[in-house]
């Protein structure tokens, strides 16, 4: 972009009288027009397009993204790679190992472990995604409002989050899920949202308070913006990154939490197919038939790992201080 450079030339010549100084001034003038690292491209780049640019080149993101894409695919269409029925069991084949057509063997009830592992992805992914969405929405809404308005609402919310942090997860889960009936994923999701939102609320509150103090929020106010406009257009986009990072990492732990609750017998219950249930029922036979435990446990571990890796990659891309 050609900025008028003549005043700079004048100053360099009259001030120092040295050609070197003039070159420097001109070089500076031009380099200022190009942000560092933008190269030849003159395209507008926002924080989000920058982050996407980084993510696409991050091998951690590519690997975790492929695993997650595969998981989402098999939770939507499990029959595409598993032709059997996860609930069709033959007790005669109980605890048998790998054999043609049944690569992962059979479990204690004589059900095909491969089919059940594939079908189990749906429960885990549903719980993980829905619980994270719920937690992120509720937490950032309450935390954001508390951070922006402060005052009594903020104090009240802070004390409420303290109360929730004091609840032990497993004990809370045992109580909540034995009171709330149902064998579907929804009570489990509701419990995770109930317990998880204070974490996001705290982060959202802190990051809104930080963003609120920025000069551009003050400037927007000086130019006549009202509360809702400041919060929605000037604060939220600048405060949302930490929430996204924590929520993505938490997604993995929510999947693990679902498995924990199912293992304890209060989460999902048969006939729902879930890795947690299978791990629970297989754990008694781990010495005789370890394959019954290892396949669903391995799938769970890979899934949790993939989501946590995704969270890490997202954090690297969104946090400019870590670059």
């Amino acid at each position: 972009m050609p900025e008028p450079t003549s005043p700079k030339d004048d100053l360099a010549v009259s001030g120092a009288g040295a050609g070197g100084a003039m070159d420097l001034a001109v070089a500076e003038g031009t380099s200022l027009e190009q942000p560092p690292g933008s190269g030849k491209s003159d395209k507008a780049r926002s924080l989000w397009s920058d982050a996407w640019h980084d993510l696409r080149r991050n091998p951690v993101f590519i690997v975790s993204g492929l695993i997650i894409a595969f998981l989402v695919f098999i939770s939507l269409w499990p029959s595409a790679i598993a032709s059997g029925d996860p609930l069709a069991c033959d007790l005669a084949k109980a605890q048998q190992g790998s054999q043609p057509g049944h690569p992962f063997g059979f479990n204690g009830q004589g059900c095909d472990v491969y089919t059940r592992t594939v079908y189990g992805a749906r429960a885990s992914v549903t719980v993980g995604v829905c619980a994270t969405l719920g937690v992120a929405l509720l937490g950032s809404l309450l935390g954001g409002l508390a951070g922006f308005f402060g005052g009594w609402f903020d104090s009240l919310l802070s004390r409420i989050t303290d109360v929730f942090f004091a609840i032990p997860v497993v004990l809370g889960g045992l109580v909540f899920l034995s009171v709330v009936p149902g064998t579907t994923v929804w009570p489990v999701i509701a419990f995770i949202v109930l317990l998880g939102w204070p974490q996001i609320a705290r982060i959202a509150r802190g990051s809104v308070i930080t963003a609120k103090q920025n000069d551009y929020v003050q400037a927007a106010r000086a130019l006549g913006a009202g509360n809702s406009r400041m919060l929605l257009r000037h604060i939220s986009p600048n405060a949302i990154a930490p929430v996204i990072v924590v929520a993505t990492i938490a997604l993995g732990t929510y999947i693990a939490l679902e498995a924990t609750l199912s293992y304890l017998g209060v989460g999902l219950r048969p006939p729902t197919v879930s890795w947690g249930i299978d791990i629970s029922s297989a754990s008694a036979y781990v010495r005789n038939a370890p394959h019954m435990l290892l396949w669903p446990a391995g799938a769970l571990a890979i899934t949790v790992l993939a989501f946590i890796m995704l969270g890490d990659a997202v954090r690297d891309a969104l946090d400019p201080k870590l670059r």
Partner: protein
Amino acid sequence: MLLEVRDLHVEFKTRDGVAKAVNGVNYSVDEGETLAVLGESGSGKSVTAQAVMGILDMPPGRIPQGEIFFQGKDLLKLKEDQRRKIRGAEMAMIFQDALSSLNPVLSVGEQLGEMFVVHRGMSKKDSRAKAVELMDRVRIPAAKERVGQYPHQFSGGMRQRIMIAMALALEPKLIIADEPTTALDVTVQAQVMDLLAELQRELNMGLILITHDLGVVADVADKIAVMYAGRIVETAPVKEIYANPAHPYTKGLLESIPRLDQKGQELYAIKGLPPNLLNIPPGCAFNPRCPMAQDICRSKVPPLFDVAEGRQSACHFWKETLDA
């Protein structure tokens, strides 16, 4: 009179007590006029401006007394939503650091256009065309191509031009510029000041220029108000104050400007530090640092004495200072 500030007081509650940031400031600006408010950091010049704009954080800030008349209305008696309509449309502010005053996640076009969306209810598409028009007006080259770019893609001078464009968008009657050139390098400073002065003339706006840079003031201001410890210590037309200051503090400020004919000599500096606003010295606040201080300066707060037509000084010894 476009804007008249009368006996304005602002204080802040802190853990250590009440900090009196502004203690009875009077100033006025007319259409087409430029008032420069000079003073060190902490002299209350920015706080006064924030009170005028209505963007003071309250609490901890508080305005115990004073009036701010803008186009005949006392702003301090208006409700917040009425003041909000005035902000941006009738009076606008330009901030010191244009990079931190622009939202990093919105393109400059969106931020410029926002003025028209908020105050004029314009559609997004129309507001974008207006944004390009404004960028042209503040002479940003290739405005059409750059309207979708983000603040970090502009140089410091260009960013300050965008801030100016935002402030001027709705052609307000009054602009408050809070150290608009402090963050820029010297050559760009001159360009930005010229642009601001030119647009002011064109739109016949009142301009309050807050600065601690005496060099910036000389060319563009009509009158000057010098602030010290939350009070105005001297007001005068710009030429007279440079020729012959009537307050020892102003005199000290002028003497501490490096000059070409003083090559090789030590640069003058006002001794001591500005007072702690929690504990302003009794009498004249400047007395501990003043070379002319007498007993009366330690006991009696000097009122603003009329020195000449349109010229006042808050010094017991203004005559002696003028003659010196």
